[in-house]
């Protein structure tokens, strides 16, 4: 099978700070891959390479190649907006727009000029069903999304991402701002979404990586130390550093 995402010898610098060091890794379609590693090791930076969100940082510089569906996403011919439609992102802190639930979901479609009410209605229902929150909010679609709980907001943000029909969903610590129950629902959701999407998730929670991912990548100081089947990596790590990190004996 052809890999969905291929990264070849990727290096990233912020100014002179070398934060991603020669990282190569492949991600298969419909796979859930977790990135783990200590704070500052470059997980978010690497994740944000995949939808080019680092482009906004002035000192950002990248070498190497990243292919998604066999296209070099840093090629000058690539339209970044198209890439970001295909590669959606969910952030650490729920960040709904200060608009209604409905308008949050259809935001990505409206900016493409899609305003057909029937179609938008159907997308809202479908995506809210997908994230399992339709019954909770169907009577208040036109109320502000800011009034929802953190867990609900995060699911709105996921639904909003799904509405533009991406094939890859990136998640940067999507549950770190949520309570255990909301966290469990999001994890369940990730499990469901995997049937349709390729998912890359950054997490500090090793149990979470164990529960949701097929493969896990362990980063340390910008290097990819070990990348393996999740169960294998947690039960039988090949590298001593990984072993130390997952057992919490570090430093």
């Amino acid at each position, binding site marked *: 099978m052809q890999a969905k995402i291929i990264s070849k010898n990727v290096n990233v610098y912020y100014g002179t700070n070398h934060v991603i060091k020669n990282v190569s890794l492949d991600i298969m379609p419909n796979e859930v891959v977790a990135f783990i590693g200590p704070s500052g090791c470059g997980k978010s930076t690497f994740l944000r390479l995949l*939808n080019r*969100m680092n482009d*906004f940082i002035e000192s950002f510089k990248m070498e190497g190649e990243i292919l998604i569906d066999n296209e070099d996403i840093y090629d000058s011919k690539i339209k970044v*907006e*198209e890439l*970001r*439609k295909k590669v*959606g*992102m969910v*952030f650490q*802190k729920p*960040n*709904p*727009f*200060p*608009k209604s639930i409905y308008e949050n979901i259809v*935001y*990505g479609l*409206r*900016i*493409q000029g899609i305003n057909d009410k029937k179609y938008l209605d159907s997308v809202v229902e479908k995506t809210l069903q997908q994230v399992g929150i339709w019954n909770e909010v169907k009577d208040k679609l036109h109320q*502000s999304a*800011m009034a929802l709980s953190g867990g609900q907001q995060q699911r709105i*943000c996921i639904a*909003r*991402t799904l509405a*533009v029909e991406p094939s890859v969903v990136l998640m940067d610590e999507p549950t770190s701002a949520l309570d255990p129950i909301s966290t469990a629902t999001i994890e369940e959701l990730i499990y469901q979404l995997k049937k349709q999407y390729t998912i890359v998730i950054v997490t500090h929670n090793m149990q979470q990586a164990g529960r949701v991912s097929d493969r896990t990548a362990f980063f340390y100081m910008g290097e990819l130390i070990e990348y393996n089947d999740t169960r294998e990596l947690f039960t039988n790590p090949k590298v001593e550093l990984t072993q130390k990190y997952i057992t919490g004996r570090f430093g």
Partner: protein
Amino acid sequence: MNNHQITINRWKDKIFYWYGLICTVSGVLILAVFLYSIIIEGWDRLNWQFFTSLPSRRPSSAGILVPLLGTLWIMILTTIIAVPIGIAAAIYLEEYGKKNKFAEFIEVNIANLAGVPSIIYGLLALEIFVRIMGLGRSLLSGALTLSLLILPIVIVSTREALKSVPKTIREASYALGATKWKTIWNAVLPSAAGGILTGVILAISRAIGETAPLVVIGAMLYITTIPTHPLDDFSVLPIQIYNWLSRPQKGFIENATAAIIVLLAITFILNGIAIYLRNKWQSKVKW
């Protein structure tokens, strides 16, 4: 620290407390006395006749219809002119012009403009709008003048509002495939709308109290026709007040006080709306 020292500090504390209290109270008190005396003197004059009459040589039959309409016209025209330009300029400076020499130059000048005495704007406007552009002593000239005056305020407050929109909102928009312009238009501006509106209202409320620049460009002291067109001659409330206050008859002084009440009421209402919007936005939008 010994006991003696502590006692002294406690005394200092007390003295400062009372000092602060007295300053605050006396400030509010002076304002209250001022309002009270104005209302006492002008209240009886606030009847229907006063609002619907043209100026007159007899105080009891004079009214504020012309300057009141003038003020309303000026408010609307100034808003139409200054708000789009001010917001557009703020968007350029805040979102596009970062670290380019031209934007830096403009920025310094805007800061300076905000400190220029308003009469200077009047002189500038007299030359440009009234003479060179040939707009005469019209409502339009007046609105353009006041637009110049409040542009820096609109720009600065809009920039503040844009700055206060958190990065996460922009990121959310970009991550959904939005271009920079769509992000600004669909995500940033709506999120900043409360702050922008507050700034605009405060600027307008500042503008309608201005007298000096309008006197310079030649707003009429005595005019008996209702303004119906942007190129009509005009007067505004502060000028009418100024005019009546300079008359010797007691009746005109009373008229002036009544007109002050009207002007104050408009300003208070505008400021009230601004405060209401700010609170509403703050409670709705928690980042």
